């Protein structure tokens, strides 16, 4: 009995999760379809070149692309996020540029807006 209850519950819950994912998939596909339609209208006549590429090469490209995307994703989000090291270095550069400009503005006298 317990076995039945137990396995029944497990199957029930995972089936529900299946349902949840299925709904996601439908939404994804619909959204993608819209995007693809747009894309197709834009790229119109150009045919996909994948057919003529050796599968090993295709695989390599896929991997490289994925890797690149991951790295880019990491980099971008790092830049946007609060990340003191980068900030400090960024600041150092800014400050240095600022210093240089303001040193120059002391060396070469020129019109200032300040009183």
């Amino acid at each position: 009995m317990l076995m039945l209850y137990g396995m029944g519950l497990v199957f029930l819950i995972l089936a529900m999760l299946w349902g949840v994912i299925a709904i996601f998939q439908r939404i994804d596909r619909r959204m993608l379809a819209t995007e693809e339609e747009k894309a197709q209208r834009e790229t119109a006549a150009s045919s996909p070149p994948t057919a003529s590429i050796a599968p090993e090469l295709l695989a390599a490209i896929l991997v490289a692309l994925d890797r690149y995307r991951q790295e880019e994703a990491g980099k971008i989000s790092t830049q946007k996020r609060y990340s003191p090291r980068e900030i400090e270095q960024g600041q150092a550069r800014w400050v240095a540029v600022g210093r240089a400009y303001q040193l120059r503005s002391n060396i070469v006298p020129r019109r200032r807006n300040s009183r």
Partner: protein
Amino acid sequence: MNLFSTLFTGLDALTWGNVLMIAVGGALIYLAIVKEYEPVLLLPIGAGAILANLPLSPLVGESGLLTILYKAGVGNELFPLLIFVGIGAMTDFGPLLEQPYMLLLGAAGQFGIFGTLFLALLLGFDINEAASIGIIGAIDGPTSIYVSNMLAPHLLGPIAVVAYSYMSLVPIIQPPIMRALITKKERRIHMPYSENPVSRRTRILFPILVTIVVGLLVPMAIPLIGMLMLGNLMKESGVVQRLVGASENEIANVVTLFLGLAIGATMQASVFLKMDTLLILILGIFAFGLDTAAGLLFAKFLRWVVRGPLNPLIGAAGISAFPMAARVVQKVAQEEDFENFLLMHAMGANTAGQIASVVAGGVVLALFAAK
């Protein structure tokens, strides 16, 4: 006198039980180093067993280090849950999201839990002990530790040791069962790659919704599924790399070391050297086998239902034991046809097994913890 009495307090207190347990600890270290069976856990467990069984060891006294570690993270279930955050941060649910029907294979791969539970009851274990032994069939270390520590903490040592040792044996346990239950012809089935797109939105929403759905249905599963999915959410979000890194590395490594030592420390001679431990050793193998068989047979059944190109071998990956089971599937499939690539499908079933293990752990707790 003083010199000799001081020198011999330890030797005086030495029992045969201690000697045997030190040998068991040595054996675990041997498995860890020479056989490379899950060394990051078995080595600390073995070391903990030796350190706890040296006579008069202050490490397991009331304020001993191993006692402190046990109280700090095993007794209160902190350590296995923190490890789950790290596992979640390392898991890619992509293959599963592309083929969600795999979730059923994950469910089937938990049959060994209840089968073993039943058998343990027959062998005379009480209901909580039986459930703890059954959970070996989840084939997932932290789940086994979490559940057995809650239901029958005195069996934590042998259960954890059995769970991790056998997990390393998956490449030896599974193939014979796979060859016996799945015909050559079936093993040759190629599976087309399903081109279901998975958006970033789906990947981010998935861990959140799984937590809510499973949490609402089985509140006892909230800690396990919640921490697993928290790790995955952080990974997929892409905006908290620092926390993901801390979960995967700092937290996971430190906690693994402490968890292993603390579990080893529970393996005192008086608790471990019992017939029960031997039975758990046997029941563990049974759980692994039953899980695998159930997964395979259910996959066969599923193939009969859908009548499509489904290779029943991937059912074996539903037991979890991530990622070894998926690799075993790929290997056995390639034995028959070198150009058959099932790995990604198996990974889907494997991550499904991971989720199903956690759900099953919660179900077991819901059914037995209250009583």
